[in-house]
């Protein structure tokens, strides 16, 4: 299964707005993507990870393009957007 390690880029970590933006994007993908094992389509489950800016998380899923799309979002500073 495709997976990749990525460093969290958002200054507030995977919280509030970044978690919501990632979950929205993951919900629109055709396949399931997980971040550290939790469903990336759930902003609440992303928040439970407590991942801070600079932490490394594991993005995984069946589809490489979907994994890459979510990994790219995790790496961005979504709070600055």
């Amino acid at each position, binding site marked *: 299964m495709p997976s990749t390690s990525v460093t969290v880029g958002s200054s507030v970590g995977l*919280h*509030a707005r970044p978690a919501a933006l990632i979950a929205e994007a993951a919900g629109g993908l055709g396949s399931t993507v*997980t971040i*550290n*094992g*939790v*469903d990336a*389509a*759930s902003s*609440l*489950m992303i*928040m*439970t*990870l*407590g991942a801070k800016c600079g932490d490394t998380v594991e993005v995984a899923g069946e589809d490489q393009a979907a994994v890459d799309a979510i990994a790219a979002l995790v790496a961005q500073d979504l709070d600055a957007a």
Partner: protein
Amino acid sequence: MAATGALVTVTANPSIDRTLVLPGPLDRGGVHRVERTTSQAGGKGINISRAAVAAGVPTLAVLPAHDDDPFVEEVARAGIPCHPCRPAGSIRVNLTITEPDGTTTKLNSPGALSDDAHMAELADAVVREARDASWVVLAGSLPPGAADSFYADLLPRLHGLAPVAVDTSDAPLTALVAGLDHCAPQLMKPNAEELASITGGDAEALEADPALVARHAAELVDRGVAHVLVTLGAAGAVLVDRTGAWHASPAPTTVLSTVGAGDSSLFGFLLGEIRGAHRADRLALAVAYGSAAAALPGTGIPGPADVDVSRVEVRALATT
């Protein structure tokens, strides 16, 4: 509140839960060859610390035990930081004997007799650790010899240090409720039976009627408890605070063992609070965690990857 601090759990009456798996039926008076044995450090506080470790939440388990007790070794092996206090004796062993047809025989030990000095040392250790805590969780029964008011007496000493969650039953719960007007915890997590023992009514009727549960739980909120989380088994859970009441229903779950489900629910709520989730979302996490624990065998404690919050339905309840 220091959200970065440790989730401090207190296990006043810990046990080693040992399971002996027999290859045939148990024969009283006979000699048996045991097929397999498993052993796990048990107690509600330890279960909650276990869930915290799985979720990457800093935790510390405070409990009475000798430094070299097998219990402390098990806890260390599970990656749980531990603060052992002077115990009254060795940690009790609870034996479960299982037979191939599913028959289960349990032999529970009472534990060593504690005196006031032991309990005072435990209380002092909890107060010390509470200074750097995100929450303090007082969960489970008290050892033989302890005053029923141990939790009730500890609450005022923790006031202003850290928010406190309490999950207990019987006499320690009664003592806590008697003292609520003096000092109330931030969270109580009764089940239907425990709620009925506090506010009256019938546990079965409560389990069937979330709105009735909310009205009963609101009595505790009126007496100063900030959040009341009532777990209702297969019917989910109800959360009541000053702003409202909610009921969350779990997705249909194939139940393997309900042991540890209530502890997992309590942790799910605290995880949501620690991570800054909204009230209804904390309740959804509590129910999803409870379901995930029920779907695991034995005292299985879930991690976030086992939890499916998307299948939990939350609705607001009228509180008038």
